C-alpha cells in the first residue's frame, strides 16, 4: 500500500453529530462491541475499517437503532444525536431512522417498481405535495445514486430485476431520497465497478457538504479517498480513531498498521 496518495488535510474542528460513549453490544452471549466511544462529526465523512466480523456493521446499526429488530441484541452505553440520547425511552426509533438513513451491506430493494422503491420514503414522510414533486425527488435521488441513466426508461420495472450493483445504487438512491441528516452506508461499493464507485464517492463527497456520512468499507483506498475521519475496529474493540491522514500515515497502534498494510485481515 505504498502507492497510496494521502494528502495531509488541514484539521478543522467540527461539531459532533453523533457521540457514542462506552457502547457495548451483545448478541446473546457474544460480546460484539466492547466499550466503544467515538464522536462522529457533522458535515464530514467517517470511515469504519477493520477485518471481517469485527463489529463494524453492528456498531453502525446501533447508530439508527436498527439493532432493535434483532431480539437477541442488547445494547449498553449512550449514543447521542445532537445531544439527545437516541436510546431514551421517549425516542421513537421511527423518527430517528428518518433522520439517520441507512444503506445496508446486502442490497435489499423492495420487490416493487424502481420508482416506488425511491418514492416510498418521501411518500410515508410526506415530503412531496403532488406527483410532479415526487417525480422530481425520484429523479434527483436516482441521479445522486448514479443510476438514473440506466433506469430512466424502466422506472415501472421491479427493482429486484436489476443487477447486484444497480440494486445497491438503487438502495443508495432510496436512502438519500428521504434527505436524512446522517447517512450510514455499510459497504456501499462492495458490488460496484470502478466507475460506479467513483460516482458514489462523488455523491458521498457531495453529501458531506450538508450531512454527516458514515461509511463502512473494506477498501483502504476508498477510506483514504473519501473520509476525513477513520475508525479502526478489531474484534469488537475500537483500536484507533482519528484523522484519516494520520491513521494511514502514522498509525499509533501496531494492529492498525498491520491491517492497513495488509498483514492482518
Amino acid at each position, binding site marked *: 500500500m505504498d502507492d497510496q496518495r494521502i494528502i495531509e488535510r488541514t484539521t478543522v474542528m467540527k461539531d459532533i453529530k453523533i457521540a457514542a460513549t462506552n457502547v457495548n453490544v451483545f448478541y446473546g452471549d457474544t460480546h460484539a462491541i466492547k466499550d466503544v466511544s467515538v464522536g462522529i462529526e457533522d458535515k464530514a465523512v467517517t470511515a469504519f475499517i477493520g477485518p471481517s466480523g469485527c463489529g463494524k456493521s453492528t456498531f453502525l446499526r446501533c447508530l*439508527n437503532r*436498527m439493532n432493535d*429488530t434483532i*431480539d437477541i441484541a442488547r445494547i449498553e452505553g449512550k449514543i447521542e444525536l445532537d445531544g439527545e440520547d437516541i436510546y431514551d425511552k421517549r425516542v421513537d*426509533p*421511527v*423518527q430517528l*431512522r*428518518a433522520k439517520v*438513513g*441507512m*444503506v*445496508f451491506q*446486502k442490497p*435489499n*430493494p*423492495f*420487490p*416493487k417498481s424502481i420508482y416506488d422503491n425511491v418514492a*416510498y*420514503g418521501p411518500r*410515508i*414522510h410526506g415530503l412531496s405535495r403532488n406527483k410532479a414533486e415526487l417525480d422530481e425527488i425520484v429523479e434527483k435521488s436516482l441521479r445522486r445514486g448514479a443510476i438514473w441513466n440506466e433506469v430512466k426508461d424502466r422506472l415501472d420495472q*421491479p427493482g*429486484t430485476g436489476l443487477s447486484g450493483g444497480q440494486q445497491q445504487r438503487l*438502495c443508495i438512491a*432510496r*436512502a438519500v*431520497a*428521504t434527505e436524512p441528516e446522517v447517512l450510514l452506508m455499510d459497504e456501499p461499493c462492495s458490488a460496484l465497478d470502478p466507475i460506479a464507485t467513483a460516482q458514489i464517492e462523488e455523491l458521498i463527497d457531495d453529501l458531506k457538504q450538508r450531512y454527516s456520512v458514515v461509511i463502512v468499507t473494506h477498501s483502504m483506498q476508498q477510506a483514504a479517498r473519501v473520509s476525513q475521519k477513520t475508525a479502526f475496529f478489531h474484534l469488537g474493540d475500537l483500536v484507533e480513531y482519528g484523522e484519516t491522514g494520520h491513521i494511514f500515515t502514522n498509525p499509533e497502534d501496531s494492529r492498525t498498521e498491520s491491517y492497513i498494510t495488509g498483514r492482518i485481515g
Partner: protein
Amino acid sequence: MTDATITPVPSPPKTPLTEADPRTKKRNAAEKRFQYYGIAAIAVGLFFLIVLMVSIVRSGLPAFTQAVVSVDFTLTEEQYDEAEAQLFKTAAYQSYFNAVLREELRERGLDVDFDEAAIERILGKTGGTLREFFRANEDQLGQPVSFELSASSRVDGYFKGRVTREALQDSRFLQQSDLDLVDALADAGIVFSALNWNFITGADSGVDNPGGAGIGASVVGSFFMMLVVLFLSLPIGVAASIYLEEFAPQNKFTDLIEVNISNLAAVPSIVFGILGLAVFIQFMHLPQSAPLVGGLVLALMTLPTIIISTRASLKAVPPSIREAALGVGASKMQAVFHHVLPLAMPGILTGTIIGLAQALGETAPLLLIGMVGFVARGYPDGFVAGFTDPNSAMPAQIYTWAARADVSFYEKAWGGIIILLVFLLTMNAIAIILRRRFERRW
C-alpha cells in the same frame, strides 16, 4: 499468506471429460433413480385420482337425469267443477289423467292395457300434482297444458339400468307388467330421460320421494356458511398471525399460545361441534340449524389452519425487506402492511383456501348443531335469512341421503358429491386468480 511455502504437488492424472468416471456414474444413477421414484409416485397419485373421479362421475351422473312422463293434458271447467265437488278429489283428477293417457296411447296405435294401480306405481300420485296446479292456475283451464311428471324411483332406476326385469320381483312398488307399459310408453316417446333441474336447484324431499330431492338449498346453505367462515377466520387469523409473528415479544406466554394454536389445528372437528352446540346455541341462543352457527363453528376450526399458514408465509418473507422499510423510516406497521403482507399474500391465500376447503367438506360438527336431516326445505327468503334460516349444508345433505334406505337416494348422494366438488373447484379457481393478482406484484 505471504510466508506460505509452496511445495510442488504432482499434477493429477488427466481424465477425459467425455467419459464419466465411476463416481459421476454413481451419482447420475442415483439421480435417475430418484427421478423414477418421483414419476412413479406421481403416477400412483394420478391413478387413484382418476379412479376416484371416474367412480364419482359414473355413480353421480345418473342423479342429474330423471325419467319423466310428458303428457298434454286438458282440463275443462266442467271437469274441474265436477272433480272439486267430489269427496275424493285427487282420485277424480287421477282418473281424468288415466283417460288422457289411454287416449294418447290409442292414438299412437299402441295397445297396452293398464289399471289405475299401475299408473300409481309408475308415476306416484299424479292426481295431487294436477289438482295443485289447476287450483293455482285456474286460467289454464280448458287449454292443453304440457306436464312433465317424474316417474317413480324404480322406473327411473329401470331407465338407468339400476332395476332390471330379471331381478325384479313383483311387489306393491313395481311389477313385471308395469315394465311392459313403461317400455311401450318409452317407445311412444311419452316416457324419456330428461335433465333433472330439480336436483340442482331444488330442496330436499321426504324419505318417500327420492325423485323430488334436490341439493340447491343446501348449496345455498354451504355458501352462506363459507361467507361466515371467510369473513371471520381470514381477518382474525391474519391479524393474530401478524401480531404473533411481527409484534409479540418472544416469551413463555407467546410460546404457550403458539403450542396451543398448533394443537387446536389437530382437534377433531366433532369437538368443535359440541363446543358450538354448548356456546352458540345453548348459551348464546343463536338459531339452531342456521348457517350462521355452522359458519361460526367452522370458522373456529379454520382459524388455526389460517394462522399456521399465515405465520409460515410471514416467516418466509426475507428479513432484509423489513430492514429496508425500517431503514427508510417506516414504522413497524407500515413495514408489515406495505411490504411484508403483500409478499406473504399468496401463501396466506393458499392457507385460506385449504382451510375453507376443509370447512366446506366438514360434516361432523354440523351433526351436532342440527344442520343434518330433513331441514333444507327451501331457499331462504333474503340475504339475512340466508344466515339465520334453518338450512343444511352440502356434506350434511349428502350424509343424510347416503343414510336413507331408497337406492336412488344413494345415487343422489353421489350426484351431491359432484356438486360439492364443482363448488370446491370454483372456490379454488377464485383463489388462484386472486393469488395470481398478488404474485404479479412481485
